[in-house]
């Protein structure tokens, strides 16, 4: 039971919004699609809900075929999908209650059942007392909750969210990220959210697909994607990172020994032949500064940003840029160590590291162990 996308292709003139995208999204999970602007993530979401027709490809949800090339296309009103829009798209001429009941009315639910369902959703989304308010009388969070309630009202099994939290302020966004994830999990819904906010994807999703230039370039669990990305695009999209070039010099048990600026680091990653050039992924949280005398990287501090709980330091070491955290103001030169267990590397120069496309074939959004 899953949403399957095979060979999805969509062009606008000469530009490929989607270029032969294949994905399998498992039921009952929250999936995030992230990518830079113009990567094709919104097009993919629009194709799933039917607001855009693919030029080619197949989309299937359980046993229902949404689209097959140009020969079969199920319009959005018959797909039974819940959709939460970026600007909510609440009908301004209807009250909160009427907005929530809209999808039930068109399905000709009996009035008593509609009333009961609306009350249920008002309670579920903490909108009690707002039944008769018009959208312009709501706060940002209330609008968002109403939009979710409206999408959930007809009891869809698949819910799509198109950057639905992007217009909210940071504090409210953080609160709703947790609330919505808990809600989707408690209702055992399959949710797909499009976002450009890596934190949102990490917090809300069970699985994340990274898109770039119309291709899905990476599909993994949040932790794997954050800690063991397969490309520079994926690494950079998921948060601040230093990408250092290195060369494999050998192996040690199940680890690869990488020459990193003259230091040999044993990194746990798939085996690679000695001499293979690699890109090493160093998150700021993988770096530490200690008072011990163990050898580390001499980093010349160039920039300091105070972030409240700690300082984010930008420095240079052997011609490479390094980001790391400190719990005190830095000195001009700091000796930085890496937690080798939290480093990751992948072969440099492949298509993946250029962020162009993942290997051919279907990718599956299934939680990695």
């Amino acid at each position: 039971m899953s949403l399957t996308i095979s060979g999805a292709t969509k062009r606008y003139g000469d530009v490929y919004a989607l270029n032969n995208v294949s994905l399998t999204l498992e039921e009952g999970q929250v999936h995030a699609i992230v990518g830079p602007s113009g990567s094709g993530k919104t097009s993919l979401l629009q194709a799933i809900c039917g607001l855009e027709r693919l030029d080619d490809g197949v989309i299937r949800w359980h046993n229902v075929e949404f689209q097959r090339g140009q020969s079969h296309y199920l319009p959005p009103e018959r797909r039974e999908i819940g959709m939460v829009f970026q600007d909510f798209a609440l009908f301004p001429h209807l009250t909160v209650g009427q907005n929530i009941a809209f999808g039930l009315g068109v399905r000709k639910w009996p009035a008593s059942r509609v009333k009961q369902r609306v009350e249920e959703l008002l309670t579920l989304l903490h909108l009690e007392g707002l039944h008769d308010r018009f959208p312009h009388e709501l706060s940002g969070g209330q609008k968002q909750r109403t939009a979710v309630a409206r999408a959930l009202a007809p009891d869809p099994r698949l819910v799509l969210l198109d950057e639905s939290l992007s217009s909210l302020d940071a504090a409210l966004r953080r609160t709703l990220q947790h609330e919505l994830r808990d809600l989707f999990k408690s209702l055992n819904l399959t949710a797909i959210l499009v976002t450009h906010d890596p934190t949102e994807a990490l917090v809300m999703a069970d699985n994340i697909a990274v898109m770039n230039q119309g291709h899905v370039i990476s599909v993994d669990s949040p932790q794997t994607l954050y800690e063991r990305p397969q490309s520079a695009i994926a690494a950079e999209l998921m948060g601040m990172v230093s990408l250092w070039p290195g060369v494999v010099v050998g192996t040690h048990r199940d680890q690869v020994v990488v020459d990193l600026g003259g230091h040999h680091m044993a990194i746990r990653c798939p085996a690679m032949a000695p001499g293979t050039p690699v890109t090493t992924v160093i998150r700021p949280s993988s770096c530490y500064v200690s008072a011990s005398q163990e050898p580390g990287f001499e980093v010349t501090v160039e920039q300091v940003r105070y972030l409240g709980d700690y300082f984010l330091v930008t420095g240079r070491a052997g011609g490479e840029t390094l980001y790391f955290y400190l719990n005190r103001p830095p000195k001009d030169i700091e000796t930085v160590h890496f937690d080798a267990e939290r480093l990751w590397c992948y072969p440099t120069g492949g298509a993946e590291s250029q962020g162009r496309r993942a290997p051919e074939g279907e990718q599956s959004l299934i939680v990695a162990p």
Partner: protein
Amino acid sequence: MRALRNRAFGWGTVLIILGVLLGYPLIMLLLQAVFPGLQVGGSGALTPSFQAFVTFIHDPLSLSAMAHTAVLALSVATLATIAGTLLMVLFHRRPPRWRPLWPMLTWALFLAPSFVIAEGFDLMGMPNGLFDRVFGLHNISVPLLFSPYGVGFVLGIRLLPIAMITIDSALRGMGDEFRDAARTLGAQSWLVYLRVVLPLLRPALMATFFVIFAEAAGDFGVAATLGYDSHWLLLSYLIYQSLSTFPANFGLAAVQSMALMGIVALAQLLEKTTASKRSRFSVLHGNRHVHAAHQQSWLTTVLFAIVFAMGLLIPLLSYLWIALTRGLSGSGIGQLTLHNFVLALHTPMLAGSLSRSVEYSLAVAVVALSIGLYLSAMTDREVSQTVTRWLTATIAIPGLILGISYIFAWNAGWLTNIGLNIYGTHWVLILAYTAGVLPFVVRMLGAAFAQIDPNLMSAARALGVGRATRLWRITVPLVLPALGSTFLLVVTGVLFELPASELLYPAGSPTLAVEIVHQFHNFNYGVGAALTLMGMIVALAFTAAWRLVESRWMGSWREARSSTERRDAV
């Protein structure tokens, strides 16, 4: 203290301008109904009498004309609003081919004077007209065209662009997101329109209905041509008759004018009361999502082609047919002649009417745009907004009523006593034209000024830019497109203005519209048609000149501005 003085000065100038142009004439119109001796002056000037009201109530002609006007306005407003909405929904969902062509034609029809279109149909349907000579349809076309249905049809076609422009703007502002939301909630296409699009369009639909109703009720061009020829009297033409018969019945004309204003006001009241609280919402989202262009449709193309063929092509062909033939006897290419044009150009009275109207239109454009700019750019926003509201309310006043008010106001005995005699001169026409176009000018320029982000001025001030430089380098470039459109609206409007001109033109110096109608009424169809075509050429020349200026000075900026509209998110 200085702020108070500035505000007092602002209010003072506004009240003087509006008082002279609109307030005083309209008050005189109302007074005339109760004080019939006001025009004559002397001792009986202020003796009240309700005789005009009694005459009106017992005049079957007035009552039937009032009923005709109300029925016509109601039918035309209803049908044009429905047709305009359907056309624009099709335009957005199944766009016609050659898409940039249709908005241009819509504006051309919007700017075309109603009497020009009505005369075009008149010429087409008359014996030996286009229908008769080319299609042999005289027996079918004449009974249909010269009837209340024909009058309603021509007026409806003429006013259709109002509905198209308003609904187009409302649909664009709505974007596709609400429709998408409704569809994902399971609503079929027809239900989306019924439950979402139409309710959201309701304010625009009501506004459209009201504007068309007011325009149809107050229209003089169709009433004086096709309406008159159909022997179907409308109130606006009856008012003109009350004044143009000898002796003129000023009191009855005043009461008939009040009745006409009453019909318009009733529609306005209806609009206000039906616009319930539930429709008082704002479209909430600022980030409009618009789908990529839909597949073009031949059906929509054909529908649009039919509308504009009837609204523009048929009148134009009629004028060409009549103007290029001699004595309505020719039917082939060999019979073509430029005789009518030569006559129009070489007869001083005819050529003079065209040049006079061009002079009037340019003079009024300068005066009205200056006043409009002053009112729109006033630093005191409260005064500026109040003035815009007042003037918007006067948009509904028909041109004919304005003309009559000007007779009562500037031909009043007390003015003669103090030696102020502008009635019967060019000045009274310039004042009347200015009063007629000012509400539109202020509305259009006000909208352009309102769109200038105040932060732009703050940014310029922070960069050390002075007031004069801000005006020249920021305000003027930003309002220049609106200024150009307003200029064209004023020039073309005044060039062919008929109702006020008929009542106020100085003796022996008719304007273009007056002369055209005069020629038609005297059965000089060829000359009338040639004059009309010459007027159209002048209007097109103004439009072309402005487009040239626009493309030279502002081409790249306008293109950049229009391309900022968000298309599909990829």
